[in-house]
């Protein structure tokens, strides 16, 4: 603790000030507003926990919550499986693996909003045309109901993010010393055994990172939701972040929206922390 000298604080101050200005103060302010009847301009009284009580009876919020939870479960599994699969594929020695890495990563370079619009076109026009040509009903009327809206969102998110997850897995895969694998080969381990007993434990830290990224990203997703379905039809594909934004800006209910945002923050923080703590522990065990 001795090195916490003047220079220590001097170097820390700019970051602390920046964090305080854009994170700590707004969060505290938001927490305060969630106990008032703030309309974005003024508030006339403190309402205690009224906003929190209201939000647990708010069908739209509950609906958005379960929709988001479902979405997170599906995308976390799919992203990690596909991301790891792609990583394993492009770390094999064959011509063009660098090219493939670039291709798989590319969707991640496109902004979520634009991506949503592109996929909206694919789902409504492309799928429709394909469905007409092949007489496949399930390809038609995409994004017009909750189910296709849900899977549309999943497809876009997985398509966009798996390249990013792949990069992280690649980094860890390349760190596995060749000697261990070779030693295992000599000992007669099969490819599957090498994967489960050596590769997988060695990349456990990557798993922690990727789980965290996909989890928190899944909860916080907004732009794809906005451009792909905009919550429709009948608000059935509205996710938590969108419900919060709409409560504030469409329904002009700023204090309720603040309360929802606080609850949202607590949920995401709790789940993410528990997940990281658990995976860290598992890493040590392995």
């Amino acid at each position, binding site marked *: 603790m001795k090195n916490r000298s003047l220079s220590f604080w001097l170097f820390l101050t700019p970051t602390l000030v920046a964090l305080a200005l854009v994170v700590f103060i707004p969060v505290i302010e938001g927490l305060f507003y969630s106990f008032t009847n703030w309309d974005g301009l003024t508030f006339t009284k403190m309402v205690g926990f009224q906003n929190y009580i209201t939000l647990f009876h708010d069908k739209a919020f509950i609906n958005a919550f379960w929709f988001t939870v479902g979405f997170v479960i599906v995308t976390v599994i799919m992203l990690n499986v596909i991301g790891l699969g792609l990583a394993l594929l492009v770390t094999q020695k064959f011509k063009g693996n660098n090219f493939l890495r670039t291709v798989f990563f590319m969707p991640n370079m496109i902004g979520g909003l634009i991506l949503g619009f592109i996929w909206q076109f694919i789902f409504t026009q492309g799928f429709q045309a394909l469905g007409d040509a092949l007489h496949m009903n399930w390809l038609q009327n995409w994004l017009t109901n909750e189910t296709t809206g849900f899977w549309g969102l999943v497809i876009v998110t997985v398509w966009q993010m798996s390249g990013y997850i792949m990069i992280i897995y690649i980094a860890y895969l390349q760190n596995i010393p060749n000697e261990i694998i070779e030693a295992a080969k000599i000992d007669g381990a099969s490819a599957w055994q090498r994967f489960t007993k050596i590769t997988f434990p060695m990349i456990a830290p990557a798993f922690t990172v990727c789980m965290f990224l996909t989890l928190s990203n899944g909860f916080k997703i907004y732009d794809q939701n906005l451009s792909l379905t905009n919550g429709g039809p009948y608000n059935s594909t509205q996710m938590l972040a969108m419900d919060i934004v709409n409560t504030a*800006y469409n329904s002009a209910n700023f204090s309720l929206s603040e309360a929802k945002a606080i609850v949202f923050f607590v949920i995401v923080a709790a789940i993410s922390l528990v997940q990281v703590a658990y995976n860290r522990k598992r890493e040590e065990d392995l």
Partner: protein
Amino acid sequence: MKKNFWKRLGKRVAVVALAAGAAFTLAACSNSSSSGKDVKITILQGKVENNKQFKQIAKEYEKSHPHVKIEVTSIGGGTQYDPVLKTRISSGNAPTIFSLAGPADVQQFKAHEADLSDTKAAKAAQPGTLDAVKTGGKIVGLPFNVEGYGFVYNKKVFEKAGIDPNSLTTVDKLEAAVKQLDSQKEQLGIKGVFALPGKEAWIMSDHLLNPYVAQDYNGNALKLYKSKKMAFSKNADMKTMLDLQKDYSIKPVMQMDYSAQVNQYFSQGKAAMIQQGDWIYPTVEGIDKNFAKNDIGMIPIPVPGEEGKLPVGTSLYWAVNSQKSTAEQKAAKNFLDWLYTSKAGKKDVVNTLHFVPAYKGYDNYKMSDPLTSVVFNYSQKHQTTGWAFPGYTGTSWDPDVAQPNLQKYLSGKQSWDKTVKNMTDGWAKQQNK
């Protein structure tokens, strides 16, 4: 009511708009050195599609009034406008002139609204246009313009089918015509009679719903805004009209959005008519100039009891900030008076902004496009009904109750009776809080 379209798009462009606003503020700071006598008024308004024209008019006014400086900022309507105005007010950078969308806004920004009853423009306003902005004996808003909507039709398709659109004055006549058009789809080269955008819930919840609830409130938005109960006694008539549009629309209805309806289908002659308003003219013109100029027209939606009347109303009002200095307020009022009552201003209103005026004294003016001409003619002949829907568009009932329920009905997930019940119950719940 193009604003509602922007309400949807608004969020998507909000970032750009905010960035532009910030850039504008910075630019404005750099040249704020003016002599003591000069007055600077700032305008923040929600009709973003007229941004360029308002800036041009402001420049023109600065030339003829050298002591006044005007700064115009436009924010893409509805949802994004209110938060920006709130931010500007709480950061001490409140505009001198701002826009109000209806009774809910009047209530929200009460502390900043100056009384405008002494302006020339308020005295010249057409009867009824100020109803929504009267509060406590004051007039706090001046209408931008009036707009109207109905069925915008494709003249060529109707000619080919031998139907006179102006004869479709009752629901029965319209239905017969729709069936005839539908049976001749291929000869007429259309994909459907209507193009109903199921994705844009506001087209149903605002425009289509309006004539059927407005009757219970004499078309007065303020009355509706203050009502504890929504009778919605004409709901069966609305169902007929909604079903007609749905059944004979290009499918799938629930995939269609505003741009599919207007750009993709109507402007390219794929739909015989669409339920829209005069604000779509620039969009249609942008796609096919000749088609827009020569081949489109508008008829009222036939509503039992109100046949032959066009719903005409105001989507935005000007307000002057009462917390600014007297000199600034006076300059702001002078500018608005100049815009709507002086000769040069009137010319700008009609020819630059393409507004259908909400004021008297425009008898000698001619509107420049076929859709605004229809609105202008109906309002000159007083064959209009009021817009009651601004009484609910600013409240959470619209996005949270009316829109999802109507979409559920359109998707076949919910019966009409349940839809009506949810809507009227939701209104009662909101109003009796």
